């Protein structure tokens, strides 16, 4: 007893050598806090300058890529629709668009990536791939206009998705390709936005994604793999789009996601991994989606607490009561699933039209601070973290995350936020996005009108 008490009083000192994880984490924290301390010491007007989104420089950086990319980009030779998407989406987030000539050139180029049998390849004449299909479709929606939207061969694309679908509910990324949660999201997202989603494409997708939710609460790329921010966004968005989000353990998912925002103010992708600006969207997007599911989450929390409250009060009848409660819950879930699944075509549209105001679950001001002070390069482009190089991918997803932050308190998806909710000058305000697709809201609405009223 005294020995135990003594041990509690004087816990054994930790080993002298920090682990790799600790060293790397402390190094990043040191870099970030140095920036924040510098920021805290400069005059207010200088602070405002530091917090300014260098919009013109970012636009100059991404626009240049539309006309010229160095030979280093050869490694992205099979991903050119992604380059299109990262660039066009960044431009649209800024409230701008490209000129008519570039637009026509982009439509023509993406058409050359479109496979005769459906889907889009990573380059002209290459194999179609679900991820580059998502990138191409989102690019064309972002460009907007009838010429762009009409260039998508939906019938052939549907056939491509059906060929990629697996009995276990997953999708192959390409012919004989890998199966994971990314493929589920890119396939379902594209089918949903183009109004070609049906029961065949949805079949068993929910089961596959449920098998990827880990003991941590987040979602992994494959069953058994580690919970990861990119896959969590993909899995969650997919479950919403197919009307089965109530089958995820949402309270655990919320808890996992909110703990991915660290003291650096940005999000990490996995537990005990380093902060990365792109998770401003992948994790920030997941928490933004969860914010809009509060009624379902509340229901799940009430159900579980009621079950165990009953169990506690009447422990002798634990087994019987537990069984009964579970049966009741399952029935309700099935009811919810049935009613919503028959309406999956409208889920994405309703998601933004039946927006319920709810305070954000993450620290949106802190995340804006990370993006503007740590991820932003003053000369243009955004990045992973201080010390890393800017690139189009991080520019796109940091700006997307910034938009989510700015509108995180909004009562309607596109109602302008109050100035105090936008860190830095109000000119930092970006266009709102549809969080399920990461497409600027206005372009989504135009696409919805085109694809849903035409038929």
């Amino acid at each position: 007893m005294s020995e135990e008490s003594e041990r509690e009083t004087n816990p054994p000192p930790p080993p002298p050598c920090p682990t790799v994880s600790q060293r790397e984490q402390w190094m990043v924290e040191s870099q970030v806090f140095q920036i924040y301390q510098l920021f805290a010491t400069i005059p207010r007007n200088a602070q405002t300058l530091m917090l300014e989104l260098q919009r013109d420089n970012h636009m100059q950086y991404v626009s240049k890529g539309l006309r010229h990319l160095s030979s280093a980009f050869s490694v992205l030779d099979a991903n050119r629709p992604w380059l299109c998407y990262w660039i066009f989406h960044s431009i649209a987030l800024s409230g701008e668009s490209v000129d008519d000539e570039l637009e026509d050139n982009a439509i023509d180029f993406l058409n050359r990536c479109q496979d005769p049998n459906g889907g889009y390849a990573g380059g002209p004449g290459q194999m179609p791939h679900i991820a580059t299909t998502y990138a191409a479709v989102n690019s064309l929606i972002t460009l907007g206009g009838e010429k762009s939207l009409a260039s998508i061969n939906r019938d052939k694309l549907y056939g491509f998705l059906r060929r990629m679908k697996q009995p276990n509910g997953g999708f192959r990324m390409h012919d004989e390709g890998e199966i994971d949660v990314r493929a589920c999201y890119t396939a379902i997202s594209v089918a949903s936005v183009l109004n070609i989603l049906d029961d065949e494409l949805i079949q068993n997708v929910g089961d596959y994604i449920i098998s990827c939710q880990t003991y941590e609460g987040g979602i992994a790329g494959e069953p058994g793999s580690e919970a990861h921010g990119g896959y969590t966004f993909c899995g969650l968005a997919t479950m919403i789009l197919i009307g089965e989000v109530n089958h995820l353990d949402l309270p655990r998912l919320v808890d996992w996601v909110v703990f991915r925002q660290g003291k650096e103010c940005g999000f990490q992708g996995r537990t005990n991994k380093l902060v990365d600006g792109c998770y401003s969207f992948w994790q920030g997007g997941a928490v933004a989606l969860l914010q809009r599911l509060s009624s379902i989450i509340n229901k799940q929390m009430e159900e579980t607490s009621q079950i165990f409250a009953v169990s506690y009060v009447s422990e002798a009848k634990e087994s019987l009561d537990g069984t009964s409660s579970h049966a009741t819950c399952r029935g309700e879930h099935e009811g919810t699933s049935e009613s919503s699944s028959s309406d999956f075509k409208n889920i994405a549209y309703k998601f933004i039209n039946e927006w319920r105001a709810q305070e954000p679950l993450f620290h949106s001001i802190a995340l804006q601070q990370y993006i503007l002070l740590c991820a932003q390069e003053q000369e243009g482009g955004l990045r992973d973290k201080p010390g890393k190089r800017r690139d189009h991918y991080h520019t796109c997803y940091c700006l997307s995350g910034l938009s989510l932050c700015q509108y995180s308190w909004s009562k309607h998806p596109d109602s302008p936020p109050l100035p105090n909710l936008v860190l830095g000058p109000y000119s930092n305000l970006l266009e709102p996005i549809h969080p399920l697709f990461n497409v600027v809201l206005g372009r989504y609405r135009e696409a919805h009108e085109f694809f849903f009223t035409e038929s």
Partner: protein
Amino acid sequence: MKEGEQQRVPLRERAEWSDVTPLPQNDGPNPVVPIQYTEDFSQVMDYFRAVYLADERSPRALALTAEAVQFNSGNYTVCQVRIKCFRLHLFLFISSLLQVWHFRRLLLESLKVDLNAELDFVERMAAGNSKNYQMWHHRRWVAEKLGPEARKNELEFTKKILSVDAKHYHAWSHRQWVLQALGGWEDELNYCTELLKEDIFNNSAWNQRYFVITRSPFLGGLKAMRESEVLYTIEAIIAYPENESSWRYLRGLYKGETTSWVNDPQVSSVCLKILRTKSNYVFALSTILDLICFGYLPNEDFRDAIDALKTADMDKQNLDDNEKGEQQNLNIAQNICSILEQVDPIRTNYWIWRKSRLPLSA
């Protein structure tokens, strides 16, 4: 190798390719996102397109795919570009040389190549660039063809990569596939223990540990392993209470059996122990909050430990700790949320939301 690089002969100057007309990529008159390919790169790809469209199943086509893949491994580029190339492959959706890897698999099947040699090839390519979905997909395909004989090689291969990057997502996913498809479970728990001994914050190793105890055919499953794993985890928690991985793992050990989690005195005991240290107690408080929401009744020791963490501001809120039963539980839960708002400011919004959703207030 270096000498070989310098003496590389362009394809169009090699006799064995004289019968092939290279096929340029049809970018159209005004392509967007145009990549300024090096002459070497575009030449290799032009020849590749020609043999691909001709569906030529030949040894020279196989050699050509190897040459194309090497370009993306940085073997023929300057160091600076190689670094840039490497970083680009960290992205979530990016596939590299999709068509080349795909065609290579068709060739391997048609030409009945020794697949063990293919494992060597993949390993050499992984040296320069191991975060490439296509390479890992290819590796899985080859190992699957080889069957159980590939087990040892695959476990060694992933182990080598994990020794350099202990959290390599693709390597771990591949290793899990190997275990499930080819076996090799016997030493896996020991492997996890070793990695966690080196770095107790390695969440990938914790995840693998969970994978093993739940799926290994030798261990009997979660229930059978729970007692020993709880002891292991509690020791890790006490050593580093700020380590989120061990707390989430502990919760996972009771997955599907929340009642056991609530009623296990080991769980509440370790929380109390950490609270009394008055440092790094965010996860302990969060766990107690969850326990209370699932029906746990904290005793006086807990109430005292929690009171000790309250700030002067919170005392002024005059929360009544003297009420009984459900009301008392509600007050304790509210106090926990208030404390967490203070000590975990990045998650203030979350704790406020949790406070508004406490079950006993419904």
